[in-house]
């Protein structure tokens, strides 16, 4: 189950801590702030991402993750609303699960993809906490496919090691596919299955009904298992907590 804390830090403009399946990430956003001359974009805000590993200094893995996240968030944030400024993200990985075997290397998972959903979730929550205008929110998940074509959502480190392919998918709040990163051998049919599964995890049931009706549905539905509702719930609780003084006034 995901564990979400909004605004745990004092100094950053907005921050969030997101923990799920052994991964824990603290994200901080500063922005819009002054941008360095060389990074300045005349018509939109520059988005700068720094991913920092729990142990050791960042390397190629982190740079790769940064580029994926940067490309995603540039679509999510209304960058044209803040031209010639900078929105700066720092994503600190606090814990990543270990598989209990001792290796000569630093405790980092062999592949870098499994941490990506947590990074994306943490950054979107931090953006909400910063109150930067967004065009949509997003939810991301990890699905592994093992050798006999079974789908495993939120796999453990062992399961990832044995999997024939792993996939990270992120969906916008409109249910559109935003990010897809896959590793390993798989067929197009398997990918379709993964897509359906991931969509179900992130966005819940397919909505065939009209806009107003679906809103009623979400109001009545008791099912908070899909990730979008988890995020919504966390934000609602935070708002309720911050507004408590108002309620007590009557």
């Amino acid at each position, binding site marked *: 189950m995901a564990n979400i804390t909004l605004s745990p*830090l004092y100094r950053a*403009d907005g921050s969030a801590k997101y923990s799920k399946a052994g991964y824990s990430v*603290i994200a901080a956003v500063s922005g819009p702030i002054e941008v360095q001359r060389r990074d300045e974009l005349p018509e939109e805000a520059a988005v700068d991402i720094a991913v920092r590993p*729990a142990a050791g200094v960042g390397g190629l893995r982190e740079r790769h993750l940064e580029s994926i996240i940067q490309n995603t968030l540039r679509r999510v944030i209304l960058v044209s609303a803040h031209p010639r400024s900078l929105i700066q993200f720092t994503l600190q990985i606090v814990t990543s699960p270990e598989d209990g075997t*001792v290796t*000569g290397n630093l405790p980092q998972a062999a592949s870098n993809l499994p941490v990506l959903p947590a990074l994306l979730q943490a950054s979107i929550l931090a953006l909400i906490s910063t109150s930067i205008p967004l065009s949509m929110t997003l939810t991301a998940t990890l699905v592994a496919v093992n050798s006999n074509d079974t789908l495993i959502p939120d796999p453990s480190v062992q399961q990832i090691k044995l999997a024939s392919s792993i996939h990270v998918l992120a969906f916008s709040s409109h249910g559109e596919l935003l990010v897809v990163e896959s590793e390993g051998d798989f067929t197009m049919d398997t990918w379709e299955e993964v897509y359906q599964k991931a969509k179900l995890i992130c966005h819940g049931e397919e909505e065939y009904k009209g806009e107003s009706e679906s809103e009623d549905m979400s109001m009545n539905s008791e099912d908070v298992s899909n990730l979008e509702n988890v995020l919504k719930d966390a934000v609602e609780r935070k708002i309720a907590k911050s507004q408590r003084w108002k309620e007590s006034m009557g």
Partner: protein
Amino acid sequence: MPREAEPSINDRAFLLQALQENIRLDGRALDAYRHLDISFGDDYGVADVRLGKTRVLTRISASITAPRPDRKFDGIFTITTELSPLASPAFESGRQSDLETHLSRILETSLRRSQALSTESLCLVAGQKVWALRADIHVLDYDGGLIDACCLSTLTALRHYRIPDASVKGGDLTVYTPVERDPVPLALLHHPVCVTLNFFESGEKWLVDATLMEQQCSEGEIVVAANPQGEVCLVQKGGGGEVDALVLLRCVEVAMGKVRELGKAMDGALAKDAKRRDKGGMSRELRAENER
């Protein structure tokens, strides 16, 4: 990158005038620390220290490498500090600032050079394999007292860390997983803690554990690192401003009391965490250093 905002002239005057009347803006006594909270992660060797609004997270990790050729019997212990924009927008990632250099020098002297950790105990096979221990200090929030919090966090993490047990038989090295053998604590020789004091009114007045604003208004600072046994590991005076020798002596004396206080808080937090982990009271029997 924005600079750290200086306190305004009015803020500064207010703070200094209050100090003249021995009042601090947050109502603390001049020699009182802010609320200290030490918590641990699920893994060994992760310590999260909160000192007021300052928050530092340290993570210890170990790997096996070859030792330096001139020091065949010594393991490697490195402390890395990188100040990121998490803590304050004024910190730039990827570039070393003066504060960061200052911080890493002090940690280097107080923890590494004072031989708090016996590096010889990290040797596995002389000249071939040693543990390389790494302390990654992540500053999450910055409101003054950085040196004190970082030092405390690193030391607590070191005391909390358990290194995998290993044995050498006929030149073959076996490292055991936590399932096979319970990991063992590190060999720490003493527990040095840093205490920072800031000076005001040309060295006449000093206070302990300054907040960021107090730090910005101060004329100078002195860092004292000592262990609870009363041995001083480091005294560093910085930031200009002259200070009377007798005041300096008095400061070291005050710092000594604070070191004991912080040491006690650290002991308490560690004991509490050990109790939480000790499910069913079996940890004593399961310890790796017991006879088999």
